[in-house]
């Protein structure tokens, strides 16, 4: 058994790539070893800003011998066939064995591959892994052709066993594998030799390098928490930032600094964003006031002055950064929100869909129209839509695009606007994905819906639909957003006609905007595109509902029903149906329905009529038949009003009452009676089942 230690030492690896690179290194090397017959006990990989490291324990010192037999052609076949076989196995005729086989004398090749020392195998595998490493972005340097994430400087590759350690020899573009590594860039830059992983890790620690990213992250978080706690403060959690910062240092030293009083009036989000994005600082909050009062920065070294110079420098940078933020904030506050929004006239949204200002006007009109449907005040919805995107023209959002919306909220508040309007500014972009917060404030819902519907109908009108993986305008997300907003708020919106009207307007104006100016509007283009967009919504809805455990056939059964552009109705129906089908009554009723439907379909095809009307109880010969008539009448009486009031639970319960009579009917009654009148009456009775159940859903689409 042997242990392998590999280190790839380079210039600074981007923090965001380190964890993935360490995992890839482990997988690629161990896969290669196993494929070559070298099994191992355990493996682990690590990354720091300057090194990727892999340690493998309990590796076979040699791969096992392999003996392989291959059956060849019969003796006496044409020379060509024999030569082909010889080429394939890489042997000559005299090396083949001749054996008696069922079909006569046959050539056999016995290929014996003796095991190879681990070192030889590693020598082949590692250069291949390095040359084909899956970095998200890689580069060349100097005059070389090797690609790595940043210039690769040295390779440590040592195979160790009880009787000693040896360097595994190989060379990549002039970099020769050795047993050397160096410590921290400034604390311990000297090179030193290493024989095994334990020694490597321990020596690195002495040389101011914490090898394990998790250890660095834990160290940072513990120190940061303690430092904040000691002053009655708390660090704002930020897992992404912690991982990033742990990837920027080999020897983390946590320092806490002050934010000058000058900046205390800035919104919390501005402080946090500026500190995180620009400086990679953690925010430190006063739990009593909720305000950000200090920051935590992580240095990569110890100093004789215990970080005083470093901290002073960081504070100075922060001062300059926040001065900038303050400059933007104060400038923005000088501009009335409406004036800020007016600048949207100068910004093209899309050359066929006009400027941002035109877009805002459309959204405002639509928000007004749908306000009633979402219980929002129409004037307020329109006003909110008019200012919701004004902050895109603010200096703060120009600098920090991720603050769009949030800044609008602050500027609206400062301008004394209604809270509902300020909330709409902040939240109308939501939801931004399946797990994002879905707004529920009515004015926000109106603006959010109007925004998304305008975008979708606009791009549909100009035929810029998502294709495959390409969705540059995030239209799938917008459609899902509409669905989430509608469903979570229980909104009833007959959307197809709204879509058509919007699309029609977009088509007309896009023709005016675009160069070809004179294209006539095709008849029915709006209807066709609205239907297409509706089916795009339905596709998103299927995905959304599938994630909620509603199966695709249930969704199809409901989509086939009228008013399928009212998503809330659609989902209520689907949920009730799904629940019903899972019950014993539901499962059996479905079977009964299928049986009825099959019989009907066959009979209708044969007789070329539709058995959909005229079943009369007076031709009923048996009690079970009469019972079914009665049950259908009862069910109908209950189902119709229930459907009308969208009480699907009641409708389902009414259908459950059909199960027993239908089962009884099929058990006792022969449909194809001798009397034609009776037969037709029975078929029409089946037609009645189909008709009754069709009020609830299209059961022909349900599997089972």
């Amino acid at each position, binding site marked *: 058994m042997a242990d392998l230690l590999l280190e790839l030492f380079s210039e*600074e690896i981007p923090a965001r790539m380190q964890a993935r690179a360490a995992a890839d290194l482990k997988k690629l090397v161990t896969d290669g070893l196993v494929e070559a017959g070298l099994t191992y006990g355990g493996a682990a990989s690590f990354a720091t800003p300057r090194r990727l490291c892999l340690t493998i324990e309990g590796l076979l010192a040699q791969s096992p011998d392999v003996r392989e037999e291959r059956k060849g052609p019969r003796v006496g076949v044409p020379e060509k066939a024999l030569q082909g076989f010889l080429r394939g196995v890489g042997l000559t005729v005299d090396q083949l064995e001749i054996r008696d086989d069922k079909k006569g004398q046959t050539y056999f090749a016995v290929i014996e591959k003796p095991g190879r020392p681990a070192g030889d195998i590693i020598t082949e595998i590692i250069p291949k892994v390095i040359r084909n490493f899956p970095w998200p972005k890689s*580069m060349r*340097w*100097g005059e070389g052709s090797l690609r790595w994430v940043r210039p690769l400087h040295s390779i440590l590759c040592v195979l160790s066993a009880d009787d000693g350690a040896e360097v595994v020899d190989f060379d990549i573009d002039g970099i020769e594998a050795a047993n050397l590594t160096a410590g921290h860039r400034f604390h311990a830059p000297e090179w030193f030799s290493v024989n095994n992983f334990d020694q490597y890790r321990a020596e690195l620690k002495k040389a101011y390098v914490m090898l394990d990213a998790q250890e660095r992250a834990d160290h940072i978080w513990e120190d940061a928490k303690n430092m904040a706690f000691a002053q009655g403060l708390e660090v704002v959690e930020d897992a992404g930032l912690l991982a990033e910062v742990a990837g*920027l240092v080999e020897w983390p030293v946590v320092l806490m600094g002050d934010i000058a009083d000058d900046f205390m009036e800035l919104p919390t989000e501005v402080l946090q964003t500026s500190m995180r994005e620009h400086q990679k600082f953690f925010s430190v909050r006063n739990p009593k006031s909720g305000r950000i009062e200090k920051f935590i920065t992580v*240095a990569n070294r110890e100093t004789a002055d215990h970080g005083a110079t470093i901290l002073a420098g960081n504070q100075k940078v922060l001062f300059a950064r926040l001065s*900038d933020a303050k400059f933007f904030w104060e400038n923005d506050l000088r501009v009335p929100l409406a004036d800020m929004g007016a600048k949207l006239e100068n910004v*093209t949204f899309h050359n066929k869909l006009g400027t941002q200002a035109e877009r805002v006007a459309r959204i405002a009109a639509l928000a007004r129209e749908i306000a009633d449907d979402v219980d929002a005040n129409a004037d307020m919805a329109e006003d909110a839509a008019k200012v919701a995107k004004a902050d895109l023209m603010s200096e703060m959002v120009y600098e920090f695009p991720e603050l769009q919306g949030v800044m609008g909220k602050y500027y609206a508040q400062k301008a004394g606007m209604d809270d509902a309007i300020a909330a709409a500014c902040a939240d109308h972009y939501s939801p931004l994905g399946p797990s994002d917060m879905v707004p529920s404030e009515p004015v926000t819902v109106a603006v959010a819906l109007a925004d998304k519907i305008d975008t979708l109908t606009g791009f549909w009108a100009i035929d810029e639909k998502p294709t495959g993986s390409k969705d540059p305008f995030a239209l799938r997300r917008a459609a899902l957003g509409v669905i989430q907003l509608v469903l979570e708020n229980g909104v009833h919106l007959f959307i197809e006609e709204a879509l058509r009207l919007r699309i029609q307007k977009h088509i007309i104006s896009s023709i005016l905007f675009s160069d070809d100016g004179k294209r006539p509007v095709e008849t029915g283009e709006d209807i066709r595109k609205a239907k297409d967009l509706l089916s795009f919504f339905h596709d998103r809805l299927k995905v959304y509902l599938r994630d909620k455990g509603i199966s695709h056939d249930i969704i199809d059964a409901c989509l086939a029903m009228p008013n399928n552009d009212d998503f809330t109705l659609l989902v209520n129906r689907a949920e009730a149906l799904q629940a019903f089908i899972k019950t014993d009554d539901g499962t059996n009723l479905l079977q009964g329905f299928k049986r009825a439907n099959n019989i009907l379909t066959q009979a209708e095809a044969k007789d070329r009529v539709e058995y959909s009307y005229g079943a009369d109880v007076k031709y009923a010969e048996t009690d079970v038949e009469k019972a079914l008539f009665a049950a259908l009448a009862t069910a109908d009486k209950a189902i119709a009003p229930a459907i009308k009031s969208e009480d699907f639970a009641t409708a389902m319960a009414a259908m459950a009452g059909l199960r027993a009579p239908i089962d009884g009917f099929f058990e006792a009654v022969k449909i194809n009676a001798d009397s034609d009148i009776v037969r037709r009456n029975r078929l029409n009775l089946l037609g009645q089942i189909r008709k009754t159940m069709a009020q609830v859903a299209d059961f022909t689409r349900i599997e089972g």
Partner: protein
Amino acid sequence: MTSDKPRSFQEIILRLQNYWADHGCAILQPYDMEVGAGTFHPATTLRSLGSKHWAAGYVQPSRRPTDGRYGENPNRLQHYYQYQVIIKPSPPDLQDLYLGSLQAIGIDMDLHDIRFVEDDWESPTLGAWGLGWEVWCDGMEVSQFTYFQQVGGYDCKPVSGELTYGLERLAMYVLGVDHVMDMPFNNPDAPIPLTYGDIFKQTEQEYSRWNFDVADTDTLLQHFKDAEAECARILDAPHIDPKTDRKIIMVHPAYDQCIKASHLFNLLDARGVISVTERQAYIGRVRTLAKLCADAFMQTEAGGAAA
């Protein structure tokens, strides 16, 4: 290690000049045109193309109209200085050379926290990109460090290493000055000591006003179109000069027009008359010029073509 601290802005520049001269760079002078960054100097853009080895260092006055703050912001300026080093092929010890330059200007490596933080560089206007870092000193970005991978659409072979120092920020840090305008420009003990503000406060105000509110956008637009047309016209000229009967491809005059167009675009941007979609179109137009210049340069001797 140089432990004595410089005392003025110009001393830091002089030390960088000497350091890179000692390390084999040709010390060039600033390019005599308005540019947004030292990278635009033909000593970087054009010379990073082709196979010929190259090493140069220079100061480049740079203009970023949108960064104007009327001289009020402690370290944002619409006109500032960059120190630029370009070495082709990038030497294996470029990081160490760079750190040596920081020591040369008085940054004590034992007290400061120097970090190489990922920052991929891309210049859409030059059709260029590279990988590297921004170098942080105590959280302050003091340099850009880039290994050029492509310029003008061409793969860089060999790869150039480019260092760009933001001189004002770096100097403020080294000199311990909080506001750029307070920074000593010459020796503070000189008979006539001058601060950065003595020299640039007024100009920052003037240019900020002009950049943001006064520059005539119609004129700028016309100049942009003129520069664009002239660049293409220069490069369309036959390679053989009818007067001298020599092959003279006028890459540099054409590239001057490309630089002009780029700066005019920046001015238009500061005036807020370029929309998001138009922006892409303008950048594309400048890139087309840069690409044409790169194509032409590759056909010249300096670009590695046979004479």
